[in-house]
């Protein structure tokens, strides 16, 4: 039997019972649409997170205190609240002497209540040098100015604040420039407001951030001499991985480390961070798709059930076809094609439905709720949807098809 004939016979059988075919497909349609929607959500989340990392700045290398974590997804010691004092000013000086490093910007971070008049907001603050505003793409002022090297050296009490904090503390009618806010009882004159709000990389709330000179933050707010992080900008003439290895060499030398396994710092390029985050979000996407695939299995069982009913109903037809020369394989092929056609058509409709829902959700979120959601419709989900629906057709259709193929022609012809 030619495949063409088997295909024609199968399509004819399916179109004769249109309503049944549509209802049978519904399970697969919903299953595939769920997979598509959840994969799209996962991909959107991934795009947003990775976009945030990329938006910090280009050619950035981040140095975190503490030994590199052993596990791929375990967080560094410093992130677990363990105080590590290994990053010092001498490291910044050493890195700045390295020709492959353009800038080395130390940062300290803390949390405090920002107070203006009767307004009180808990915010995160960052103490850094004037170069903070050079390396970070997110930290660009829209009003006023940034603080200078001389402000940092002199320990001037000046601050640049995020736009959301400016709105919360001062409202829409008061210009925050030259106003004074208090952090932990220390007063700061606001000299600039950052342009962009929202959440930056690593969950830093840029909109509510307060950036103050490093020296003031270290001595007067935190009482420390070490840094929480050093952000370095690679010299664009050098390969980023080369710069990373040079920085590792410089810091090991500076810290007197001879055994590479005993590093007390952790250097990560943006590519490293992107890779880790990419892996995490990929797992998230896979997890979501796995949940959705449960509905696909339910849909597949529905297909199997209907195909079994169909085989029983068409027993005499099977008997006739066998009597006039169909082999077991011919009958199996016909029913298997029917089942694959059902699931495949269900898959195509499911993909279209999923795309429609994702597009509609994006439109509603961005138009009516002003949520910066990323429209992601990964081609991999389309391919996966098509492959899975085809495989489901075979997996759930093989048993009924084999049952049909094995029917004895005489028994089948006598079936009432």
């Amino acid at each position, binding site marked *: *039997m*030619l495949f*063409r*004939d088997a295909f024609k*016979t199968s399509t*004819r059988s399916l179109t*004769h019972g249109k309503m049944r075919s549509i209802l049978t497909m519904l399970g697969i349609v919903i299953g595939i649409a769920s997979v598509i929607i959840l994969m799209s959500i996962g991909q959107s989340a991934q795009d947003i997170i990775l976009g945030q990392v990329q938006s910090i700045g280009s050619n950035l290398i981040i140095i975190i205190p503490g030994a590199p974590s052993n596990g791929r997804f375990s967080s560094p010691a410093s992130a677990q609240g363990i105080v590590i004092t290994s990053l010092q000013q001498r490291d910044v000086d050493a890195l700045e002497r390295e020709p492959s490093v353009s800038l080395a910007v130390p940062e300290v971070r803390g949390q405090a209540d920002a107070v203006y008049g009767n307004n009180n907001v808990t915010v995160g603050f960052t103490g850094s040098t004037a170069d903070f505003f050079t390396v970070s793409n997110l930290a660009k002022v829209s009003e006023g100015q940034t603080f200078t090297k001389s402000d940092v050296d002199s320990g001037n009490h000046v601050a640049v604040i995020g736009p959301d904090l400016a709105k919360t503390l001062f409202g829409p009618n008061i210009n925050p420039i030259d106003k004074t806010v208090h952090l932990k009882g220390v007063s700061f004159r606001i000299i600039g407001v950052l342009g962009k709000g929202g959440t930056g990389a690593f969950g830093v709330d840029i909109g509510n951030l307060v950036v103050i000179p490093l020296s003031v933050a270290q001595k007067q707010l935190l009482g420390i001499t070490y840094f929480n992080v050093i952000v370095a900008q690679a010299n664009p003439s050098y390969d980023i991985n080369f710069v990373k290895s040079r920085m590792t060499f410089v810091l090991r030398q500076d810290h007197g480390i001879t055994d590479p396994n005993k590093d007390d710092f952790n250097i990560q390029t943006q590519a490293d961070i992107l890779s880790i985050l990419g892996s995490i979000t990929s797992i998230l996407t896979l997890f979501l798709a796995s949940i959705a695939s449960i509905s696909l299995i339910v849909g597949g069982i529905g297909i199997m059930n209907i195909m079994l009913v169909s085989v029983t109903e068409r027993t*005499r*037809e099977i*008997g*006739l*076809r*066998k*009597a*006039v*020369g*169909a*082999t*077991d*394989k*011919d009958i199996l092929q016909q029913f298997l094609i029917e089942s694959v056609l059902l699931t495949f058509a269900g898959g195509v409709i499911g993909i279209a439905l999923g795309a429609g829902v994702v597009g509609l959700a994006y439109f509603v979120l961005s138009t009516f709720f002003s949520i910066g959601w990323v429209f992601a419709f990964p081609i991999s989900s389309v391919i996966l949807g098509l492959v899975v629906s085809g495989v489901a057709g075979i997996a759930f259709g093989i048993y009924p098809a084999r049952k049909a193929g094995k029917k004895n*022609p*005489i028994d089948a*012809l006598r079936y009432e």
Partner: protein
Amino acid sequence: MIEVNDLKKEYLEEETPTKALRGVTFSIDKGEFVSIMGPSGSGKSTLLHILSFLDRPTGGSYKFQGKSIDDMTDKELAHVRNKDMGFVFQSFNLLSRLTVYDNVEIPLIYSDIPPKKRSTLVEEAVRSVGLEEKLYTEAGKLSGGQKQRVAIARALVTDPNVIFADEPTGNLDSQSGLQVMEILESLHHKGRTVVLVTHETQTAEFANRIIKIKDGMVESDKLITANHLRSGNLK
């Protein structure tokens, strides 16, 4: 063409062995028109099923065109059924939602005949039973007699050597039954072997030989030389 020797068929009915055929022996030559007659439960349908390769015997031997059924796989049996045998059933066994054309084409899709040649063969077969104007009518909308003629066209379409007909007039009125028997008779005259199973004497008398089966054995095997009686019987 057909040679059966001590053919036996035993079924298990609720774990009790039932002997449907108890040793049947005869042969049918090419071009013969043979009626197998017998009362209900005599084993005539079982015999036809074995002769037409729809079932296998449990004892004895059966050679079709010189080849033993025992030496053939199920796939080979299917191939012979398609190429060398045509079937006409009492209940027509047409797919009612398909057209006459599609029903007649069914055996061809399991054959080696290329798709391009099929339409000519289908049209010729349908024309030979006088239903060319119904070619694209749904089979379910035809009368009983027309349905059986479509079934005969389907049996003819692969140009088989032998046609097996199982009570072909059983569900028809006498006029339609006569038409069907006349078609089978004309096929016999054109040189085809026809094996007919019936319990009606007047239908059986269209053949030139009648094998009577009783209790799973051949009761009589007679040639009919003058068949003048039959024209009146069905009319």
